């Protein structure tokens, strides 16, 4: 195994070991922290497919995170009030079933990514960043001004959604669910990166003219990456809302899009476990520094500056060295 492989294995084991220890020691709050890391890492793994593999700096991924969150909130709130979402032309009822909620989250955010991507990917560079930001803000203001689902105050869900055979209110069981989904996304992301699609997408990022002259369409490659990316981030949004049992417009905020990018930069752009390392570091800092000072973001900013200046490959790059092509 390569050095990066060992580091990834250590991170993976660590993310599993901490909540298990907390479970044995009866520290539910620590389990919740680890669950937050897993969910935010999942959102980051999604973004990393667009940002790391595709080179698409999206400052609008909160749109997908929020869509996942609101989709869960809407379905669950209708289920808890026993009122259908709509009755004509056909009946759609709410649901508290996680698998259905996940599926709808993936479809809804994937569809949104298709529309947003199809329009935004006609631009590049700074314009792409701005247009994705604008789309994200559109959703944010829409959520604020939509009284049916809580408007500015957000929407509370009283009981966590259910998964067949599990007690999702038990912190360790809910962590297990999130951890499994994160693992699946990491597996998918690794497969994609090593596949023909991954090679083609990498060529479209590094040398778009080359990609075109071998018969590949950079636009379509990027759009597909953007859709997969948005769908995974949307799934994370549904889990995040479930963790908090609360959805609010802040899930759509540009600060959230920014945080996802911060995870990736801290962890290492385009590194498989970059978002995991970044999210873990972010939550750890927030927890310990946030206790010391309200202005802990200053330290985060300082750290980010150091990484950008001295460790371009993020934490993983610093520890593992250059990325290598592996068989």
């Amino acid at each position: 195994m390569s050095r990066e492989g060992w580091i990834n294995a250590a991170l993976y084991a660590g993310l599993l070991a901490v909540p298990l220890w907390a479970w044995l020691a009866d520290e539910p709050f620590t389990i919740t922290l680890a669950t937050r890391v897993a969910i935010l890492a999942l959102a980051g793994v999604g973004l990393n497919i667009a940002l790391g593999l595709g080179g698409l700096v999206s400052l609008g991924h909160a749109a997908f995170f929020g869509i996942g969150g609101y989709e869960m909130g809407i379905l669950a709130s209708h289920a808890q009030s026993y009122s259908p979402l709509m009755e004509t032309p056909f009946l759609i009822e709410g649901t508290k079933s996680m698998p259905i909620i996940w599926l709808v989250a993936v479809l809804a955010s994937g569809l949104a990514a298709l529309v947003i991507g199809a329009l935004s990917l006609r631009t590049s560079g700074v314009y792409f960043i701005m247009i994705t930001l604008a789309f994200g803000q559109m959703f944010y203001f829409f959520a604020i001004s939509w009284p049916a689902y809580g408007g500015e105050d957000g929407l509370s869900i009283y009981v966590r959604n259910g998964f067949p055979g599990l007690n999702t209110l038990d912190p360790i069981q809910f962590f297990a669910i999130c951890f499994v989904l994160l693992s699946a996304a990491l597996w998918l992301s690794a497969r994609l990166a090593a596949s023909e699609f991954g090679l083609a997408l990498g060529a479209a990022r590094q040398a778009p003219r080359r990609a075109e002259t071998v018969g590949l369409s950079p636009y379509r490659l990027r759009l597909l990456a953007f859709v997969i990316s948005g769908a995974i981030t949307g799934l994370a949004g549904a889990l995040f809302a479930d963790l908090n049992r609360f959805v609010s417009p802040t899930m759509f905020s540009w600060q959230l899009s920014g945080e996802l990018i911060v995870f990736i930069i801290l962890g290492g752009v385009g590194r498989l476990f970059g978002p995991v390392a970044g999210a873990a570091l972010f939550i750890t800092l927030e927890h310990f520094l946030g206790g010391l000072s309200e202005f802990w973001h200053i330290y985060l900013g300082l750290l980010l500056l150091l990484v950008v200046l001295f460790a371009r490959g993020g934490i993983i790059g610093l520890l593992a060295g250059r990325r290598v092509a592996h068989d």
Partner: protein
Amino acid sequence: MTDPVLSVQGISKSFGAVCASDGISLDLRQGEIHAIIGPNGAGKSTLIAQICGGLRPDAGRIDFLGRDITGLSVPARARLGLARTFQISALAMEDTALQNAMLGALMPRGGRLGFFRPVLRNAALRDTAMQALERVGLADQAALRTAELSHGQRRQLEIAVALTLRPRAFVMDEPMAGMGAEGSRQMTAFLEGLREEAPILLVEHDMDAVFALADRITVLVYGRCIATGTVAEIRASREVREAYLGEDA
């Protein structure tokens, strides 16, 4: 005689006041190397961009394999079998030479990309890419990152990527640019044999190479085609000498 593989008919393209292509017509026949020469800024790269699809001509049409391709995109033309190499290498610098060489074989005509199978474990693709690297003399560098290759090696890799496309015609923009005397000689020897595989439209400043390789030469000056003919005809033409070749030819 058979139809030309590629034919350019009356192509014009202006950038504001600059007329970069002024009614250019030429064709590329099976088995030949057709060189395009001309001074800097004559419009050679602009012509190639129109043939390969990066630029739309203002007027005129381009046929490839008996089909009008004037309206097709760059990838669509590539999938028909038109392989281009760039004046300035365009390669995925973070990827290995082998990964770059695979790119040409990734889209077999009408094919689809795989999403799950590791590309480096695809034996057929690997073989195609390795063969191309061997042919251009880069087999030993296959596992090196492209950024670590020398300038000359990147020029060779450009050719290897074009080879894996298994093209019906090559369009090469200054393949010898910046290669040095020895590199140029090797590349000349290599292109000599390549014409059997597919005809080559060759833009080149290295006159030794052009005179050694070309079956026909077209001379461009200020976007106009001032002469087309065999090496002997072009060397003998007074107009060409005045416009481009100078005293030493």
